[in-house]
């Protein structure tokens, strides 16, 4: 696990700013405007015109320096942080070397899913968007992929379009993956505005938890959500926006797992990919654990049927967040190492497992509750090529 936030002594007179980290101690002063110099251990830190100074795992050389513990030694050249000196907070907004960079848009949401990993709060957090808009121009041109998440990003209305436009202008070669409940796209104008923001490679991941309204609406705790999401998906297709359909498997959704796969193949064949996802036991999931928890071992046959059916129908299928020992070997080729690096762990049972390097592993939160069927593999198994016969 990698910590993405730190607390330090607040400074009543302090500033709040977004800046990029540099290891370069002799950066020409005109280039220092957006940079924070990072020093490690006891290295000397020259005074310069840097925005700020950070020292990792060492004693302060000056009052100006902000001290971070050894757990932050992963921070590197090109990473971006937001520092709020007044509140005594540092947040890591972007890591140049990571494939798991997240633009966290808002804590607000118009749904309230039983298993939400990020329980929504109705707060004014538009400063998050201001930070993101400041950070985007500082990001590396080599950024492969950015993930937009929340809360519900479409709640921000035009500010969402502002961010998409900024990405398309400053990071034209980066891919964007946005997670949304899709409800706002029931309005054609919303889908149209997103399609016109100019992103070269945007995919929107929209959850569908059942093939029938009553189950989906119960899971997301919102009437009409199913209809809005379905119409939203159709509008995304109408404006040629790539769609990923996401199905989180838990006790309230598992009974419609196979039927939902069939429903997707028949009604939503325009989706670019379909993801079946293991449950993350954090957030609301913990409050509702007894009605949500099901050992993935119990649904492995249903999962196999759903995955092979969609694959046979020519759709691209993914299995996220499930370790290989819990899914049938036949569908291993669809399993992804999907868990963001900063919250990815393995269990004690995994010690010595020959398949660990190819396995998704677990969410850090899973140590709270996980399957009784975790077992190490003795030998590396060749991932079979897919065949439904």
């Amino acid at each position, binding site marked *: 696990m990698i910590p993405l936030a730190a607390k330090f002594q607040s400074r009543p007179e302090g500033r709040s700013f977004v800046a990029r980290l540099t290891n370069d101690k002799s950066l020409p002063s005109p280039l220092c405007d957006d940079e924070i110099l990072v020093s490690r251990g006891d290295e000397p830190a020259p005074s310069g015109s840097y925005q700020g100074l950070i020292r990792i795992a060492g004693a302060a050389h000056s009052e100006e320096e902000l001290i971070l513990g050894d757990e932050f030694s992963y921070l590197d050249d090109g990473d971006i942080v937001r520092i709020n000196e007044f509140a005594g907070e540092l947040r890591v907004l972007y890591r140049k070397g990571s494939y798991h960079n997240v633009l966290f848009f808002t804590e607000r949401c118009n749904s309230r899913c039983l298993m939400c990993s990020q329980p929504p709060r109705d707060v004014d957090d538009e400063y998050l968007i201001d930070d993101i808009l400041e950070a985007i121009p500082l990001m590396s041109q080599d950024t492969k992929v950015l993930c937009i998440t929340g809360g519900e990003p479409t709640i921000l209305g035009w500010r969402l379009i502002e961010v998409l436009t900024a990405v398309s202008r400053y990071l034209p070669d980066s891919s964007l993956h946005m997670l949304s409940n899709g409800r706002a796209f029931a309005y054609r104008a919303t889908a149209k505005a997103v399609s016109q923001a100019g992103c070269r490679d945007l995919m929107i991941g929209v959850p569908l938890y059942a093939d*029938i309204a009553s*189950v989906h609406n119960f899971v997301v705790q919102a009437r009409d959500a199913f*209809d809005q999401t379905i119409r939203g998906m159709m509008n995304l297709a109408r404006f040629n926006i790539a769609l990923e359909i996401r199905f989180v498997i838990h006790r309230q959704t598992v009974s419609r797992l196979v039927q939902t796969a069939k429903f997707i*193949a*028949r*009604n939503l*064949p325009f989706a670019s990919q379909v993801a079946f996802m293991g449950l993350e036991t954090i957030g*609301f999931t913990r409050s*509702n654990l007894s009605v949500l928890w099901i050992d993935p071992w119990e649904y492995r046959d249903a999962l196999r049927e759903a995955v092979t059916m969609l694959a046979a*129908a020519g759709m691209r299928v993914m299995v996220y967040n499930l370790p290989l020992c819990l899914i049938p070997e036949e569908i291993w080729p669809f399993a992804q190492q999907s868990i963001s690096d900063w919250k990815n762990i393995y269990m004690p049972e995994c010690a010595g497992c020959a398949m660990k390097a190819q396995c998704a592993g677990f969410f850090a939160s899973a140590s709270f509750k996980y399957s009784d069927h975790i077992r190490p593999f003795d030998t590396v198994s060749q991932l079979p090529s897919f065949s439904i016969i």
Partner: protein
Amino acid sequence: MNGLNRSFKGPESYRNGSSYRLLPMKFMRFRDDRYLVTSMGGDYMFLSQTKLNDIVTHKLQQTDTLYPDLLASHLIADDSSTAHLDLLAAKYRTRHSRLPSWTALHMFVTTLRCDHSCQYCQVSRVSEDRESFDMTPAIADRAIGLMFQSPSACLKVEFQGGESLLNFDLVRYIVSEAKRRNDGRQLEFVITTNLANLTEEILSFSEEHGISFSTSLDGPAALHNANRPRPGRDSHAKTEEGIERLRQRLGKDAVSALMTTTAASLDQPERIIDEYVRMGFDSIFLRYISPYGFAVKSSARIGYETKKFVDFFKRGLAYIVDLNRRGIFVRETYTQIVLQKILMPGASGYIDLQSPAGMGISGIVYNYNGEVYSSDEGRMLAEMGDRTFRLGTVHDTYEKLFLDSPLLPMIHESMLEGVPGCTDCALQPYCGSDPVFHHRTQGDFIGHRPTSSFCERNMAIIKHILTLLEDDKETASILKSWL
């Protein structure tokens, strides 16, 4: 709900309080107590008679395990959702999504001459040396012009005969002209040929222009040669040699083969299929004989009852499935077409099982003499003296041929939604219509379903495939791998 945090509402809060409505559905009795029910969008379910009765008399309870499946299959609806209207409309539109692109297949009859004298030949053969049966470059020019007026982004040029390669100069001319005049379409060329006259020149030209081939293979040598006589009685050997040469030069997939079922085929589906597998084909189309051309004159000798064909088809399909079970991958093409219609949401590209009928609007024929026909079968009827399906000539305008010809009324009558006997048939989403067949056999474009062998054959085959999908898990998974 026990265990749910109190800030959440239970599932009952999201269930619908009202009763349900029926959506448009069609049903058909299969065997025993079992009914097939299909939706407008092609979703299907098998139901018992009791359940079906309960459903249509609004007695089904929301707690019934079938209830959510019926909702999701768009057979019923309740107040929990209105999205089914959008989805049904999208599914219906998707199934007809090929219509706006109009005619993609353009068949050029380069000559009527042929070196074979097949018993079932669908066109009057003439001896090889009578050039008055060849298409001229002037006629080809006009036909190419008409082809490029089609709105289709993809244009497929198919050379037909007679034996199309007996007029190879014209094939070469049409390929070059079509490429020269191409305004950005995706162009494909297919030569339909018996391969007996394949030359080095033809091979190099085809390699240069990416042309593919379609040929006839009726089965093992004895059967093939009996069906397809030519001087020297060596049709099978010539075909096999031709296939090999094409594969060597153009690649394995550059040549496909079609078989025609005659009376002599009926007792040997396994041997016919083995012959296809032996020759390295991974599909075989178990094709019914058409009642056109010489097939009618020789019907006493080579024809058969529909029931016998259906038995042949089922026996052949069972054998093919068995080969798959043993690890030999080979598909039956008609089954694959029907499976796609049953299981997939898209539009089928197969012209002879569409509604509205594919004639004219999916494929069109330019005859050697400049006449334009709505389908190959329509052209064959004309060679027998019935010119019902002649739309005009290549000298007519595109608008006249398509809008002011017999075409539109025929298409109009071919839409299953309005065809007596089809309008309430549960198999409607998976079937199609064949106005030429019904005109030929029953005297009008619509025909009389209870006595139509087209209907008898397709109902039997589609019902058989649905039954396999429902009853035989192992066979079903093999069939699904053909999609």
